[in-house]
Structures are given as structure tokens and as C-alpha cells.
């Protein structure tokens, strides 16, 4: 059964006000196009679970985030325009802070369907004093003090991948950050992909699938869907250029008006970016002289009768 739909349909159908939302990426291939669509649809009161997701600044700056579960975010309001804008609107998110591994383990507990996960991070630090989802217990076997993090089960998870089929079997390669546990912990999953491929392509390389189709609700084909971040095997990013462009008030407001509210979808966005950045801008980001992996045998064909 095909789950292919437009970004507009996928976001309006599956992301709702008040949801807990996992965003994949962690500096490698975040779902930027999907994040822009959430802003455009102004879906608010979100609890966002994310690690090193750059374009999340628009969700915060536009006042759509109530709570943010994370390990690292530029929280200096003197430096961060999105935070100062959110604060001026009385929409400053509450930050619930973990170490990166701690957040990953909370999602891992969610993926595994267990209530918490023991860890040896956070111990002795002040992080647990300000996060009620982190506690310590005595190991039931040895009595040793052990950290635990409470499971996170997001309502919706969004991931951007290199390729997926129409059923949602999704393949991502390169560094995976918190993608695997985050997306598999989520109750509803939206896959956005550079390319929708035939299921045969997936099945000839099934080890690369990080979530199976039956767990996925929507598939959106969106080339350059992770821009301005890089995506292994597809394109380099322009994170620093993007941060320079949108980091301060004027640049941020211009960007939001022109490139989020001023367009109807990501293809229109890309066209406008190309016009504004120059025709060779995206061409330059494409991977040159690619390194190819060696083909491997993953199965056999029935002998012809």
C-alpha cells in the first residue's frame, strides 16, 4: 500500500498541536523541509525531542515549542534571536536537559518498550537536579548506584533519508546520530526521502533499512529535503552560511517571510533559494568524485526452470 503524499498532506495529517515530536538528523541530514512545513502550518504547543537540529530555531522563534528535550542548544538569549523573539511573545520553551547519550537512552527505552534505561552518564553532575526524567537507583543485583532515564515515546517522529520505497521502508546511511532509536521510539513515523525507489532496490540491500515500512505512516519524496545540512552520498551542506544568514533579527525575519511564509512548498523554496544564491549554488554542493562501496551478495535468485 502506497503511503506517498505531499509534505503538506503528511504534516497536516500526522502532526498536531500539542504533540511530542522527534526530529532526526543530529547535524547529518535533518528533515529541514518538514520543519519548514510545520512552521508554515503553525502547528504549536509542541514538545520537541532533538539533538543538534539547526532549523529547529524556526520552530522556537515562531513560538511553536512549549518544551524542548535536548542535550545542546544555544540558550544564550543575548546571542540567540529566535529565543529572544520567543521570549518577547511569552513563548519561550522550557528546556529539559540531558547529555546526548542520556537523551539517546531515553529514546532507546521508548524503542524497546521498557519504562526506563540504566546508564552511567549524568552521575555526579547537576543535570538530574533540573530534569525529573533522570534519577538514580540501586542496581537490583549489586546495589551499585546506577543512573536511569525515563523512556520517551514521541507521538510523531520525522526522518529524512537518502532512499525509501512507497511503503516506507527507509534506508539511511552515514553517521546516524539518534535517528534509529528516535524514529523507532515514535508512535507515528513520517519518512521524507531524497528519492522514492522501487521496493526491489530496498530488498536487494535490506541491512540498510533503519525502519520497516509497516511502522511508517507517510512517505514524502523531497529532493534537497535536508538542506542546509549535508546528506551523505547526496550533497554537502551550508550550515555556517545558513547560520550567518539567519542568526540575527534582520536576516531571520527576512528568511522567515520570504522562504517559509512566502512559499507554498519546498520546490518553490528551492527555486527561490537558487535565484537568491546564484544558479551554481546547489550544483557546488553536490558530491564530486564519489566514493563507491563494493557490491556485496545479499541473496540468490531461484534457478530458471
Amino acid at each position, binding site marked *: 500500500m502506497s503511503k506517498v503524499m505531499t509534505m503538506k498532506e503528511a504534516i497536516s495529517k500526522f502532526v498536531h498541536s500539542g504533540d511530542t515530536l522527534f526530529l532526526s538528523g543530529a547535524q547529518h541530514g535533518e528533515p529541514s523541509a518538514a520543519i519548514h512545513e510545520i512552521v508554515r502550518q503553525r502547528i504549536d504547543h509542541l514538545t520537541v525531542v532533538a539533538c543538534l537540529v539547526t532549523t529547529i530555531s524556526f520552530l522556537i522563534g515562531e513560538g511553536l515549542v512549549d518544551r524542548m528535550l535536548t542535550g545542546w542548544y544555544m540558550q544564550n538569549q543575548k546571542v540567540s534571536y529566535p529565543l529572544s523573539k520567543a521570549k518577547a511573545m511569552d513563548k519561550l520553551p522550557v528546556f529539559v536537559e540531558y547529555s546526548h547519550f542520556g537523551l539517546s537512552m531515553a529514546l532507546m527505552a521508548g524503542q524497546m518498550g521498557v519504562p526506563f534505561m540504566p546508564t552511567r552518564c549524568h552521575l*555526579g553532575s547537576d543535570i538530574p537536579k533540573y530534569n525529573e526524567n533522570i534519577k538514580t537507583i540501586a542496581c537490583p543485583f549489586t546495589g551499585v*548506584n546506577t543512573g536511569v532515564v525515563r523512556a520517551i515515546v514521541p507521538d510523531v517522529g520525522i526522518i529524512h533519508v537518502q532512499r525509501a520505497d512507497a511503503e516506507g521502508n527507509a534506508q539511511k546511511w552515514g553517521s546516524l546520530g539518534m*535517528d*534509529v532509536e528516535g524514529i523507532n521510539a515514535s508512535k507515528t513515523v513520517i519518512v521524507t526521502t531524497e528519492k522514492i525507489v522501487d521496493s526491489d532496490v530496498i530488498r536487494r540491500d535490506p541491512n540498510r533499512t533503519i525502519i520497516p515500512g509497516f511502522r511508517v505512516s507517510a512517505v514524502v519524496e523531497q529532493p534537497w529535503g535536508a538542506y542546509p545540512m549535508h546528506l*551523505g552520498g547526496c550533497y554537502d551542506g551550508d550550515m555556517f552560511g545558513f547560520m550567518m544568514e539567519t542568526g540575527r533579527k534582520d536576516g531571520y525575519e527576512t528568511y522567515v517571510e520570504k522562504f517559509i511564509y512566502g512559499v507554498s512548498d519546498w520546490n518553490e523554496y528551492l527555486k527561490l533559494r537558487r535565484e537568491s544564491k546564484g544558479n551554481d549554488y546547489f550544483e557546488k554542493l553536490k558530491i564530486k568524485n564519489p566514493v563507491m562501496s563494493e557490491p556485496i551478495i545479499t541473496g540468490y535468485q531461484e534457478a530458471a526452470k
Partner: protein
Amino acid sequence: MTQDEKGAGYTAADQMVVSAARHIKDTDVLYVGTGLPMLATVLAKNTHAPNCTVVIQNGTVRKSLFALPRGTDTLGTQTMADQLCSLYYINYLGQAGYVNKGFLGAGQIDRYGNVNDTVVGDYYNPVHRWPGSGGANDVMSFCQNTIIILRQSKRRFPEKVDFVTCPGYLDGKPGRREELGLPPNTGPSAVITNLGIYVFEDREMVLKSIHRGVGVTLDQVKAEVGWDIKLASDFGDTQPPTEEELRVLREKVDPQGLWAGGRRALAGPEEDID
């Protein structure tokens, strides 16, 4: 503050990076943070430690040489890695005891090596806010030796940090890390700044050497530490960078001058509070 010493041919920042690189051994399995730690690591890989294994939190394990990355994850750090995996996998390696060295930047560090990357002042009403732990708490919790590299000022070296993001030796009493459940025989082992090098004796930070080659004096160092710091038993002068180390740093590791003049142009946990 220390500036380039005229005639030395190198800066305090050069000395900091070179000294940090020398703390990396060819046999190390090294968990490296973005920014200054990565700069020192790439220098070490290009000089005396080509075989050290570098692990990066987003899910990269690699032994082959790579160009200085500007972010935590880049196409360059992914390309021709030995293994690409998840953040949890990297930290499983650390948590289970298979990463012998960690290498971090820091907002502040105190007398017992506790690192603050979170907040100065009250948590809910801060004087200054940093972005938070990221992977730093994990590195310092798990690694057998953690090396910290940061620019030094009195505000960055308080006797006790307002917020412990990464546990050092806590209150300095013996066995505190183990009592809390942290892996045994782990913790900070050296601190490297633009003024000097510090080690830990009985879990307390002590001054091992000062960068006399760029004109740093003992009084100057003491003025930039928030407590009456002791000298290490073998206290002396920092060994200056060799011409070869400087050449590799400038020509090969950082030819674009991302680090030129000690100006931070790399993404990292550091952010000026001075």
C-alpha cells in the same frame, strides 16, 4: 592577557594546540569534541600519532587521516571512516570501557576538575548560559583520561563551578566517582590553556608548566586562577612548539586559518564570557 610574544615566532594559541596534541598517543582510542580538541587531534594525526583511533559522537570511528572539520559531523569525517554508526554505539564503547581518552573544550573548570558547560549563576535566572552538555558529560563520565582544553581567565577557573555539567573529582575526596557509580579509574587527567598545562595530584588540579616561551609568568597564571593553585612536583616550563609542529599546524592542518591568531572560527562548546 597573553598575546603573541614578539620574536617567539608562535602565539600562545599555537602553544596551547601543540601541547594538547602532544597529549595524544599513537595507540589511543580517543573520543573527541568539536573545535579546539579536534584541531589538536588532527595535528597529532599529522605528526606523532597517525594511528590513533578517533571516535566522534554522531557515529564515526576512524583511523585514517581527515581534514579539520568545521562541525561535529561533516562529509569529510564520514568519508572513508572505519565505521559509521549511531551516537548510542559510540557511547556504548565509552560506557563499557573501551575508549581510553577523551578530549573536550569547556566553559569553566574548577579546582577538582569539574566542568561547567551549562550556566553561571542561578539555573533559572542565569548570569550566563552555555548550550549545555552535548556529549561532554558522556565523555567525562566514561573515559579513562579526559583532557580539557580552554582559554584561561579567572572567570573560567573558579574554585567551584556553579553547575557541574561533567563530573571531575567532585569534592576531591577519594573514591567519590566510584561511589556515584561512575566507571572506576576514570576522570580528568590534564588541562591545557593558553597560559599553561595542569595535571591532577590527589584529584586536585595543579600547575605543571607555564608557557614561558610566549612570555607567560607564574604571577600571570596565578592571577587567572580562582584559588591558590599548587605547583606540580615537577613544575617547569612548557616545551615550546617545534618548527615542524608549527609548519604542519599552519600549512597542513589549518591552511585556511580557521584558527589564525587564536580567533575561534570553529564550532565548539566554548563561547566567550570574559
